[in-house]
């Protein structure tokens, strides 16, 4: 009964979404307050129904109700409760439900927190959100219904894919989807503005918190996914230029560009058309990302859907939304007034450079990801575009971006003083070079280019600090006043600094790990030893363990340095019994930001086992940087400027018509 109620709630949600995609648009055309208010009410109802439906499915997973086909296919009663829970979205149908839940959640947020928005913009935005809800509910009900029942109810489920039985999976997809779907709000705002024909600086400010939130979640999702792949797949890499990873990187690049161009639009009313285009592109790439993972066209380590008929449906959704958005854009964009002028060397100019580099690098990733697909479709040849292509194109493109990033915040709007900015930055650049050299000599070895890379990382960090330093007037004004000014700086200034510094920290991690990491592949027998990164490993032996739904062979290693035992790790190979599927659980010992990574290979006939040992210096910096960027996003979100306009709307809440008219 719970399951069937959930199914019914989903069907009812379709009805609500259908109404909500039509009535508010009519209301906005006719300035009809009731019909526009319908959008908010319907968004609340829609979220409630989808939540009810999602909860029913979750209940079926928790209770191991194998009369539900989806539960039987992806769960097992012996799985720990946390994985029975995360298994809800560890499969195609459930992950689409999560997508839908987050979509309606964002609609709810717009309905509740969008009080300062003009009614017509809000109504149209929510209607566009409802169009997407209709498309996805139909997709779920017709091709991927998780509520289908089995007539003959099995006693046991088929278990969840073992590599997905991990805490990382419990967190990664929801974060990634919060990012992907978050861009749907920017997209809906863009479409609503195009329908309305009203696009001004205020629009950019209204969209910014949504873009920021989506960007922050996407940053978190990508970082989480990268770390999960790093420790779960046992290959020791943190980024594989895998199509699924690229699929999440592309909206991130577009979203980063959008975040920056929206600032120009907000401040100077310039780049309007470009910003709207970026909003459309960012969400289109999010949809494409969903499509790439879901259709199973791509062979990838973590895609779990393989059904071409669904792909056709998603292709329809893609064509409808992306094609429709670009058509509307093509019709409306020429009519938009262009905004303020600016000199090439100015804050605007720097942000244009940022956008240029980000979009070009995004295009290079897009080409590298899609080209093999297109080629295979047309000629049947399978080629793979791997790391060399991306490292060359993406890597080279990033260099000017890294150099230019600290300049941006230091240039004035409209007409900047490059020399002045340069003077302020050369201290940072000098310090960075010294720090890069120090780092280099501490770790020794490695090509000279690494020094420049490390210096670039430090330069970003010091540049971010320098920005805050000069803004507060340290050195010019008295220290006490400078401190006061620093505290008084807008939150977004701290967000900028944290974001840019985070990028620097990630660059440090990437450069350090790709130049200084060492890899040993040896065969070891109990009692044998190996050395890596200045540490001494002793292979103590193997034993067998039994988990709730797997058996494992664990190897124990003692790690010592200078004769002192410092750490011990277990590295294991698991066999998940229900699917007879093996996985590798790497043993990882963390020393500061560096890690010793031990993975087991195949056992040899003579009783030894192949052991792969990596020394990964400063590897955690890669994800620390992402944490900094996320912190920057969160702090920017709390900037009071993003809440402007709310007080005026509160006055309108009063029921007397006189006050309404006063607006």
């Amino acid at each position: 009964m719970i399951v069937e109620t959930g199914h019914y709630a989903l069907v009812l949600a379709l009805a609500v979404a259908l109404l909500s995609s039509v009535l508010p648009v009519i209301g906005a055309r006719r300035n009809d307050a009731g019909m526009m208010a319908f959008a908010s009410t319907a968004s609340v109802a829609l979220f409630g129904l989808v939540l009810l439906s999602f909860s029913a499915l979750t209940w079926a997973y928790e209770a191991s109700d194998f009369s539900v086909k989806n539960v039987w296919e992806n769960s097992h009663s012996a799985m720990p409760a946390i994985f029975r829970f995360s298994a809800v979205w560890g499969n195609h149908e459930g992950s689409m439900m999560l997508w839908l839940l987050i979509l309606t959640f964002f609609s709810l947020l717009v309905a509740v927190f969008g009080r300062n928005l003009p009614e017509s913009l809000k109504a149209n935005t929510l209607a566009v959100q409802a169009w997407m809800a209709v498309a996805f509910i139909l997709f779920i009900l017709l091709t991927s219904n998780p509520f289908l029942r089995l007539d003959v109810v099995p006693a046991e489920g088929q278990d969840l894919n073992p590599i997905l039985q991990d805490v990382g999976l419990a967190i990664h997809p929801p974060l990634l989807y919060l990012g992907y779907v978050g861009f749907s709000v920017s997209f809906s705002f863009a479409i609503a503005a195009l329908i309305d024909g009203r696009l001004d600086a205020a629009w950019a400010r209204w969209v910014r918190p949504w873009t920021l939130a989506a960007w922050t979640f996407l940053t978190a999702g990508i970082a989480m996914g990268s770390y999960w792949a790093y420790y779960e797949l046992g290959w020791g890499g943190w980024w594989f230029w895998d199509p699924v990873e690229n699929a999440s990187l592309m909206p991130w690049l577009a979203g980063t560009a959008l975040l920056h161009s929206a600032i120009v639009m907000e401040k100077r009313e310039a780049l309007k058309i470009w910003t709207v285009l970026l909003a459309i592109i960012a969400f289109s790439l999010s949809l494409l990302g969903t499509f790439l993972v879901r259709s199973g066209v791509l062979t990838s380590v973590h895609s779990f859907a393989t059904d071409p008929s669904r792909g056709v449906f998603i292709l329809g959704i893609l064509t409808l939304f992306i094609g429709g958005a670009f058509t509307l854009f093509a019709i409306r964009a020429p009519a938009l007034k262009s905004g303020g002028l600016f000199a090439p060397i100015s804050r605007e100019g720097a942000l244009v450079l940022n956008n240029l580099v980000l979009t070009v690098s995004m295009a290079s990733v897009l080409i590298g990801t899609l080209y093999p697909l297109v080629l295979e479709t047309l000629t049947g040849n399978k080629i793979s575009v791997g790391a060399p292509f991306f490292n060359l194109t993406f890597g080279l493109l990033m260099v000017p971006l890294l150099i230019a990033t600290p300049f941006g915040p230091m240039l004035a709007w409209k007409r900047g003083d490059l020399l002045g900015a340069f003077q302020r930055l050369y201290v940072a650049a000098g310090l960075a070079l010294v720090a890069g050299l120090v780092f280099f000599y501490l770790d020794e070895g490695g090509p000279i280019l690494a020094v420049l890379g490390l210096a670039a990382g430090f330069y970003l960090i010091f540049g971010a600090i320098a920005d805050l330093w000069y803004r507060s007037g340290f050195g010019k004004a008295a220290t006490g006043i400078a401190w006061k000014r620093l505290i008084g700086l807008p939150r977004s200034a701290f967000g900028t600094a944290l974001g840019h510094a985070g990028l620097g920290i990630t660059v440090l991690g990437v450069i350090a790990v790709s130049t200084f990491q060492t890899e040993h592949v040896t065969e070891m027998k109990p009692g044998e030893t190996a050395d890596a990164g200045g540490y001494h490993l002793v292979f103590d032996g193997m034993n067998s363990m039994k988990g709730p739904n797997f058996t494992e062979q664990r190897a124990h290693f003692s790690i010592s340095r200078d004769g002192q035992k410092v750490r011990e790790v277990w590295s294991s190979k698991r066999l998940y019994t229900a699917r007879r599927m093996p996985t590798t659980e790497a043993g990882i010992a963390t020393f500061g930001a560096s890690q010793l990574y031990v993975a087991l290979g195949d056992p040899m006939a003579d009783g030894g086992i192949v052991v792969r040992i990596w020394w990964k210096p400063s590897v955690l910096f890669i994800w620390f940087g992402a944490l900094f960027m996320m912190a920057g996003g969160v702090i920017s979100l709390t900037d009071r400027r993003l809440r402007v306009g709310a007080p005026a709307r509160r006055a309108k809440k009063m029921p007397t018509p006189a006050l309404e008219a006063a607006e």
Partner: protein
Amino acid sequence: MLFWIIIAVLTALVAALLLAPLMRAPKVVEEETSGEAEVYKDQLKEIDRDLAGGLINAQEAENARAEIGRRLIAVSAQSARSTAAGQTLAHRIAQVLVIALIPAVGLGAYLYLGSPGNPDQPLEARLANPGNNMELLVAKAERYLADNPDDGKGWDILAPIYLRSGRLGDAELAWRNAMRLQGVTAERVIGLGETLVQNNQGIVTEDARAAFQEGARLDPKNPRARFYLALAIEQAGRRDEAKAAFEAFSKESPADAPWQPLLKDHIAANSGDAPPAAPGNPSAADVQAASGMSAGDRQQMIRSMVEGLDAKLKDNPKNFEGWMRLVRSYAMLGEKDKANAALTTSLENFPATGQEGAQLVTLGRDLGLDVEGATK
């Protein structure tokens, strides 16, 4: 009933919620510019702050103020579009849409897609009350054994069930556990041997042969052990020895023993120039012969063979020979229902219009099965 009440309440609630904004008095919204104006006013304040903080100079501040001022003017100059007439009618139509569409789409699509009345079946509740569901009983026993892995009796019960249902890996583990905990008996060790043979496509491997040997030592009269031991010799290609073993077995068995025809086949196969029968699933002849064994042996041997075949065909239904054998076996056992069921399933895989289907139909007619029912 409760389900339909819940659905009715849910539908009514949603419809009522959606009707609320449409029931209010019609109202035209003036073109709002307050939101925009507020943003621009805030930008003006920001310039003051930046100027005070020394981030921009007076000239820049002046320019920026002028620019924002122009935006403010542009905003307030926008004329209000308004269309007052016809709202009451529009709201009426919208209300009708809500009242009609919500239940129509909701119920219509649900009745098409859903399974109304299909109860929830959480595993715990099903395990608490398994009824006659073999799978659940097994699952229950498995859970019990997971907590009490040293209960030999449990393994003893599960082992033959696993063997019959074709879960051979589990069966092997269960036999071994039962022997570890309850001691080695002829029944258990021979069961293990049969499991190993089935798991190796009918070939008596070295492990299996050792098991049968142990079984024969414990129970020298056990016909299954003797048969498989002789079969092992045959499969090893030592035809003379195999013939001698089958002959000795035949001689020591009662003349009317039901496995005599089977032994005769093997004796014949190992005499003269005829090549030995290829190892494979138990042939129909094996089953037929075994059907005359003593009551206990018959139960075990035939059931394990036929149901093992049945389970295999479920996994791999495109085996025409297998289906012929299964249908015939069930008919021979007098299990008419199962024979009919097997015939129906086999005809689903090999339609009666095809050549193989026609053979199945002929076989069904010969055996007096319900061919008309099966081809429907």
